[in-house]
């Protein structure tokens, strides 16, 4: 009886161990692709299209040392991405940053895209605390589209863009975010 018990437990143990081994290996082999799929699904298509038309995903830039370096020297910078299309081709770089000038209620967070030839491909606000319906208009394409095609290596002056009437502080905050992205792009990426 006792021997039998050990045999039964032993058989189950062996089967369980082999099964876990196979699954651990497969889990490891598929981990990256699954993480990529999930990351793609979590990206809002509207944001992708607004920042870098044609992109399906922003991958974190491969050079993590560079990212750490920028972070240590530019406190508003959040992260640097490579925008890719559905077949994995690189479309350009994307900088995620806080604005450096406060808006009406605080900083806002932006994605700013740059094409390989150094133009701004698009920009959008991903989080802000501006007044709904007034300052929040900085998130709309009517305002953000004016930055598409601008030179991504030269800071944009306050007289070089159209602020939203009645939401000057929010507009300035948005502009400071764009300019911080331009500063990062011009110094470290270009």
């Amino acid at each position, binding site marked *: 009886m006792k021997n*039998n018990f050990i*045999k*039964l437990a032993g*058989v*189950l143990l062996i*089967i*369980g161990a082999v*099964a876990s081994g*196979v*699954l651990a290996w*497969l*889990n490891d082999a*598929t981990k990256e*692709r*699954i993480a990529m*799929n999930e990351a*793609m*699904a979590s990206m809002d298509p509207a944001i992708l299209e607004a920042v870098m038309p044609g992109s399906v995903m922003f991958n974190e830039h491969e050079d993590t040392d560079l990212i750490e370096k920028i972070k240590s020297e530019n406190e508003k910078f959040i992260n640097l991405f490579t925008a890719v299309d559905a077949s994995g081709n690189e479309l350009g770089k994307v900088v995620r940053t806080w604005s450096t000038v406060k808006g009406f209620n605080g900083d806002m967070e932006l994605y700013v895209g740059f094409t390989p030839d150094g133009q701004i491909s698009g920009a959008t606000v991903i989080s802000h605390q501006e007044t709904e319906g007034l300052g929040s208009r900085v998130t709309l394409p009517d305002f953000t589209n004016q930055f598409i095609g601008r030179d991504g290596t030269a800071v944009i002056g306050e007289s070089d863009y159209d602020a939203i009437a009645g939401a000057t502080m929010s507009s300035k905050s948005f502009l400071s975010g764009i300019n911080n992205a331009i500063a990062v792009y011009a110094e470290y990426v270009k």
Partner: protein
Amino acid sequence: MNRFEIFKNGITKENPILVQQVGMCATLTITTSLLNGIGMGIAVIAVLTGSNIVISALRKFIPDEVRIPAFIIVIAAFTTMIDLLMHAYTFELYKALGVFIPLIVVNCIILARAEAFASKNSIVDSIIDGLGMGVGYLVAMILLSGIREILGNGTILGFRILPEAYEPMMMAVQPPGAFILLGLLIGVVNYLSRRKKA
């Protein structure tokens, strides 16, 4: 029983859905579109054939007293493998099938074939049995999900085949429609198979 008969058995005489009527939960729920039906059918073929092979190979090694937990571990391992592979390579389908992929573990078809066939027969016969039962499952899923997609959406695999003027029969893609259409489908199959005998 020769090998061709073993294969045919799963599709006709002992079709898991249309005759044995096992594993109904996933069948009724996910057959809202043809693509889901095909995806689920293929996942079941893979798990069923894989677990049949391993269980048949281990049939002399597994003591009778612990056979059910041993089978379940093998089936769960294959299901988890399919789950990981679909998550990695067929993401859209994975999202559409959702919880029903991991639930293949408790699908009675798989355990029933392990217990009734693979644990008593050779590896080759067990492969054929797994494929036959799996294809039988797939065929039934294609029929049911195809009918539901046409009636409930006017499309096949997303392509419109009924004119725009067709008012989709919403009930066909809702749970009551699943029961009614499956019942009608089984009725038609019974009628045809009886007429063939007579």
